[in-house]
Every structure is written in structure tokens, then in C-alpha cells.
């Protein structure tokens, strides 16, 4: 049986790696670097054999001509980010093998647990995947299984559906026949606006960020699901629906409060959250 060993949620802010690497980063950026170094160590300590990476393509490949709500990638190898993201954000490339056996296993089990995943045998991973992977596993030495979610093209699945899909993925992992140790890495974000009236250089809605992280820290999944409506997320910032991936993580974690959680507000970019659930063998938490 496969074993879920760690669940981590961070951000995929494409400016963050450059800000961390830049000259004289401000204290908020230094804190983000420290937080994400801690997440990297947590995942390393969990000793995963494969990383299931849950994130959302930014209309780079999945588009409104054929938009899957939830998709599992099963090509033998993948890479990213998208060329225009390398150009715009000067991001470091990331390459990884894909664990086909786990990917196919998840697909085969998914309908039994109420989710019909789409799949693709040809894809790349954009910055939503490569930025968190760069923070948490820069070595590029562990195979991944990418799971894409649609948070960009409305109508997106509602928060309670993301929660259900998280619960389903947990059960899918638990019935996999392989003895793999599986780590979950997901990226989402809090209140962010891109191409809208609000500035993109700070949190678009501090109240939303603080409220949601407080609820996550308390393990109050019910209230998170109730409050994370499309309308409220859009009000917080036009790309805020990326928060839905954190709701999925809460479902994966059975709604339990994270073992580590934090939120910081650097001066010149969106809020930097993190959340981690440490799971051990025999722990049904």
C-alpha cells in the first residue's frame, strides 16, 4: 500500500525566487526564504519516493477550447516553466520524471471515489509547478505526478468540490498497491490581482489573507469552504481563486489543522503563506 507522508502548501509567486536571490532582500523576503527552507526540510525528512504536485496552469496550455477541471499528467518526463514565463520572470527551468505507475494507479481508482479526472500524455509544467518544486525539491531527483486544477477559467469547481477532490485523492493514494512513500506539494495563493484595478505588488486583500489563514490554522474547513466563494475570492483579487488548491489540501488532510502554518506580508509582493501536515505510517490523521 502507498503511504502519504507529507502535505505541503506554499505559493508559486514567480517574483519570489528573484527577490530572494536579489541584493539586500528586505526582512519579509528573508522570512519567506526561511519559511520555504523549512518546508524543504520537512519534505526531505518525510523521505518521499514521489511528489504528487497539485497546481494550476495559467492558461499556458489548458485553455477554454478544452478546459479540464482536474487532470492527471502521465507522460514519462516533464519540464517547465512555459517559455514566456522564463522570458518574463527569468525563472529557473525544472525537469522531472513522472511516476507513470502512480499516475495510472490514481486514474484507475479515481472514479471509485467520485472524481473523473481527465488525463494527458503530453504536457509541460508552468511556474505554478516549477516555483514550488524549486523551493521544496531543487535537486530534481524525485519523480512527480502533476495534478492540474482549473482555477483560472470560470466556472471553476466550487470550494466544496475542491475539498471533496482532496478527500478523494487521499483515498486514491491509500488504495494504491505500490509501496511508494508519497509527498504532496501544492501551490496556490491568497489574495492576488493581475491585470486588474488593484496593485499586484502587495496583498490585494489583507483581511481575506488573515481570515483564511486563521481558519486553516484552526482546521476549520467548514468555514473556509463556506466563505471561499467565487464572488468573495474575486472581490479579494481577480486571481485569488488559486486559493482553492489550499482547500483541496484541507480535504487531503481530513480537515485537520496543519502541523506548521504561517503567513507573512513582504513589502513589495503578495502575501507568503505556508502550511504543512506531517503524516507518519499508521497515522490515520
Amino acid at each position, binding site marked *: 500500500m502507498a503511504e502519504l507522508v507529507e502535505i505541503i502548501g506554499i505559493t508559486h509567486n514567480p517574483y519570489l525566487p528573484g527577490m530572494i536571490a536579489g541584493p539586500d532582500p528586505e526582512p519579509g523576503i528573508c522570512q519567506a526564504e526561511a519559511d520555504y527552507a523549512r518546508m524543504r526540510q520537512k519534505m526531505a525528512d518525510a523521505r518521499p519516493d514521489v511528489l504528487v504536485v497539485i497546481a494550476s496552469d*495559467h*492558461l*499556458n496550455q489548458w*485553455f*477554454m*477550447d478544452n478546459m479540464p477541471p482536474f487532470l492527471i499528467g502521465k507522460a514519462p518526463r516533464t519540464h517547465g516553466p*512555459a*517559455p*514566456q514565463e522564463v522570458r*518574463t520572470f527569468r525563472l529557473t527551468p525544472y525537469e522531472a520524471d513522472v511516476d507513470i505507475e502512480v499516475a495510472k494507479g490514481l486514474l484507475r481508482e479515481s472514479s471509485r471515489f467520485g472524481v473523473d479526472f481527465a488525463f494527458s500524455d503530453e504536457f509541460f509544467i508552468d511556474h505554478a509547478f516549477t516555483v514550488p518544486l524549486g523551493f521544496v525539491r531543487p535537486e530534481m531527483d524525485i519523480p512527480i505526478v502533476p495534478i492540474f486544477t482549473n482555477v*483560472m*477559467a*470560470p*466556472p471553476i469547481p466550487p470550494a466544496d468540490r475542491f475539498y471533496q477532490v482532496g478527500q478523494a485523492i487521499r483515498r486514491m493514494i491509500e488504495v494504491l498497491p505500490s509501496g511508494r512513500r508519497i509527498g504532496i506539494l501544492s501551490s496556490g495563493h491568497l489574495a492576488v490581482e*493581475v*491585470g*486588474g*484595478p*488593484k*496593485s499586484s505588488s502587495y496583498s490585494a486583500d489583507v483581511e481575506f489573507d488573515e481570515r483564511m489563514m486563521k481558519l486553516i490554522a484552526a482546521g476549520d474547513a467548514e468555514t473556509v469552504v463556506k466563505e471561499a466563494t467565487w464572488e468573495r475570492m*474575486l472581490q479579494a483579487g*481577480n*486571481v485569488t481563486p488559486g486559493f482553492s488548491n489550499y482547500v483541496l489540501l484541507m480535504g487531503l488532510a481530513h480537515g485537520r489543522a496543519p502541523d506548521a502554518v504561517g503567513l507573512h506580508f513582504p513589502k513589495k509582493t503578495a502575501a507568503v503563506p505556508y502550511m504543512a501536515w506531517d503524516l507518519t505510517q499508521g497515522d490515520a490523521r
Partner: protein
Amino acid sequence: MTRYQVDKVLRQVINDDTALEAFQRDAAAFLEGRDLSDEERKGLIDIDYPALYKLGAHPFILSGFTMRVWPADRRGLQAEYQERIAPHGYPDFET
């Protein structure tokens, strides 16, 4: 006319250097044959991002498109962009 057809142009120009060059060379020719309203077509040719934003172009790719094709100095464009779309609030961008 559909928002989808506008979004399709925006994304193509962002992702494809050949499409970008064709658009910059002759936007009208690039858009010929596409199912666009006169308003959408003019908005794209003129890079009238406030008009396209108001029509419900996807804000994420509209800003990416504008930054990519803007023919003049881009310094200050982001601030100007925010200011000029602000009066339109948050139009529905569902296709």
C-alpha cells in the same frame, strides 16, 4: 463574437513568437477571418486594453498581451494600465 475568440487571440500572441510578429506587422490581416465583433476587432488592432477589459477579456492574459505588444515605452505602462481599467471595475470574464 465571443469572449473566447478575443481570449484566443490574446493567448496566441503571448505564446507564439510567429503570431506576435504577424500581429505586429499587420494586425488587421492577422485577425482576418476570426469570429470577432467590429468592437473587438478594433480593440485588438488599436491595443485598446480598457475597451477589451470592459468587454470581458480574461484579465490575466489581456495584461500579458498588452505588455507583449505595446509599441511604445513600457515604463509606467503597468500603473497607467491599472488607472485606465479601474473605472470598469470587474467585468464578468466567463466565456
